[in-house]
């Protein structure tokens, strides 16, 4: 009986469905664990940057701090401020946590480790990623708090401003790689780390020289722009206008308590994970080892072990990026609001437009001759 059910779900055509569900559950766990332990990383990291140990009391190295925080948040009463729009108020945390979950479904962590191999994965990630701003706006608006409303207004204009350079940069990548399939983008970056999109195009070792065919001469700058926009989109310091605690108390989250706040908190880290994973895929070769086309490719294509090694490389890159996000947060002050918009409209958008133009010219050039 059990065997037959098992067989029913593990053979085609239902295996695809089972697989997807399993992945989604796995992703949920992954996001929750990440959110919890990224908080730990953040606090521990903040501590180290400030020459103090960070959490130490609960568990070894404070490793039980996140569950303790979670339990505390769960145990708190959920309250909506009187006069607020209750439906929107509680819809906002759900809306903010759902998109990163969906996005992660399309992200390939390893050679075969992905829920759905979408050929428009990139598009899907971006379309879902934009819902985040909607949720923050709703949360801020529905709280019936002036600080939260100011924050909501800030978040909207901030995210609108940073979507543009981010998408321009991504278009550059799409032009270079010619695909929106994330797995395909990774596969194209096989070989040495110089084949990664962050360096590809500056110099081609296979004989292309400067401005290699299909390359992007300003690829590192492109990466930088993507990274900055990623910080801004996830409302991280120095662009944490949504929270801006010294100005707006807690911004859009001012009125949220208990798990309502906890979900926002988790979503922030889930968004960081998505953003950093995307940066890894688009620029740092995803699960590719970057150790050359011989040994390196062999390393990641060696059956199940190769997949695991590939996932390891992916996580190493992704967590380094996440660490850098923490690093930046504990180093810089917050930007001023118009400074933030100036950066986007006056610096990032022109540069990304220029790289887009340059890349398209470089793409066209070989065909002219």
């Amino acid at each position, binding site marked *: 009986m059990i065997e037959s059910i098992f067989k029913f779900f593990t053979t085609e055509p239902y295996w695809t469905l089972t697989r997807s569900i399993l992945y989604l559950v796995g992703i949920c766990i992954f996001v929750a664990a990440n959110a919890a332990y990224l908080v730990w990383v953040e606090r521990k990291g903040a501590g180290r*940057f400030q020459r103090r140990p960070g959490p130490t009391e609960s568990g070894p190295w404070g490793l039980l701090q996140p569950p303790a925080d979670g339990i505390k948040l769960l145990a708190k009463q959920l309250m909506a401020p009187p006069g607020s729009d209750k439906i929107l108020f509680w819809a906002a945390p759900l809306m903010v946590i759902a998109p990163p979950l969906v996005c992660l479904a399309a992200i390939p962590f390893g050679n075969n480790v992905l829920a759905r191999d979408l050929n428009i994965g990139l598009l899907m990630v971006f379309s879902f990623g934009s819902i985040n701003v909607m949720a923050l706006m709703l949360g801020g608006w529905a709280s019936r708090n002036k600080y939260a409303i100011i924050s909501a207004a800030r978040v909207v204009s901030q995210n609108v401003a940073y979507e543009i350079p981010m998408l321009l940069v991504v278009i550059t990548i799409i032009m270079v790689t010619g695909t929106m399939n994330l797995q395909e983008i990774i596969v194209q970056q096989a070989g040495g780390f110089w084949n990664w999109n962050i360096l590809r195009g500056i110099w081609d070792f296979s004989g292309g020289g400067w401005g290699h065919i299909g390359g992007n001469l300003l690829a590192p700058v492109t990466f930088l722009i993507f990274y900055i926009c990623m910080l801004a989109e996830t409302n991280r310091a120095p662009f944490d206008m949504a929270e801006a605690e010294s100005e707006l108390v807690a911004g859009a989250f001012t009125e949220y308590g208990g798990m309502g706040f906890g979900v926002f908190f988790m979503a922030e880290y889930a968004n960081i994970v998505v953003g950093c994973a995307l940066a890894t895929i688009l620029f740092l070769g995803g699960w590719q080892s970057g150790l050359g086309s011989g040994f390196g490719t062999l390393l990641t294509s060696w059956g199940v072990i190769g997949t695991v090694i590939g996932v390891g490389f992916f996580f190493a890159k992704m967590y380094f990026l996440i660490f850098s996000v923490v690093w930046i947060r504990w180093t810089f002050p917050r930007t001023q609001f118009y400074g933030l918009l100036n950066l986007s409209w006056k610096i990032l958008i022109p540069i990304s437009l220029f790289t887009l133009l340059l890349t398209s010219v470089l793409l066209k050039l070989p065909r002219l001759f």
Partner: protein
Amino acid sequence: MNLVTETFSGFLSLITGLRITIKQFFSPTITTHYPHQTLPIAKKFRGHIELKWNEETGKPNCTACNICAKACPSDCIVLDGIKPAGEKGKTVTSYKLDYTLCSLCSLCVEACPFDAIQHSNRYNLASVPNQWANMDLVQRYKDQVTRVGKTPYDPYAPAPAAAPAAEPAAPAPAPTAQP
């Protein structure tokens, strides 16, 4: 052009900042992990006041002259004394310090002409207010003297009697003065 140079130099300044913080990241921590580790207390640390006593006779220096109580800006000292039989001067019998009012200004210590009070170095006084706020310094003095292995001076004892036999009828044993 200005924008370009500013962007570039600004970017460099950010890198400088990141370099500084990462250097701190890999430096050892500077904090003291308080309940597990403690720092040495400064010699002149101003804790609440306590009574000093004569090392030889074990008798408190305080003569209940009330100068400290008068010097106190916050009226937190109330003391009383008697003239023991066969003695020339008075001796303190009760010295109540309302620590909730004390501002640790050290004026009483300076005002004392007999070098009878000093600051203790007790600092971790957290407890329920009733237990520590109203201190009986005479009781504390007795505890301290007992701890160094001497018998506290008893002003109520009859004059010639050498060693006071039992615990004297000291004023209200206020629940204070743990070490």
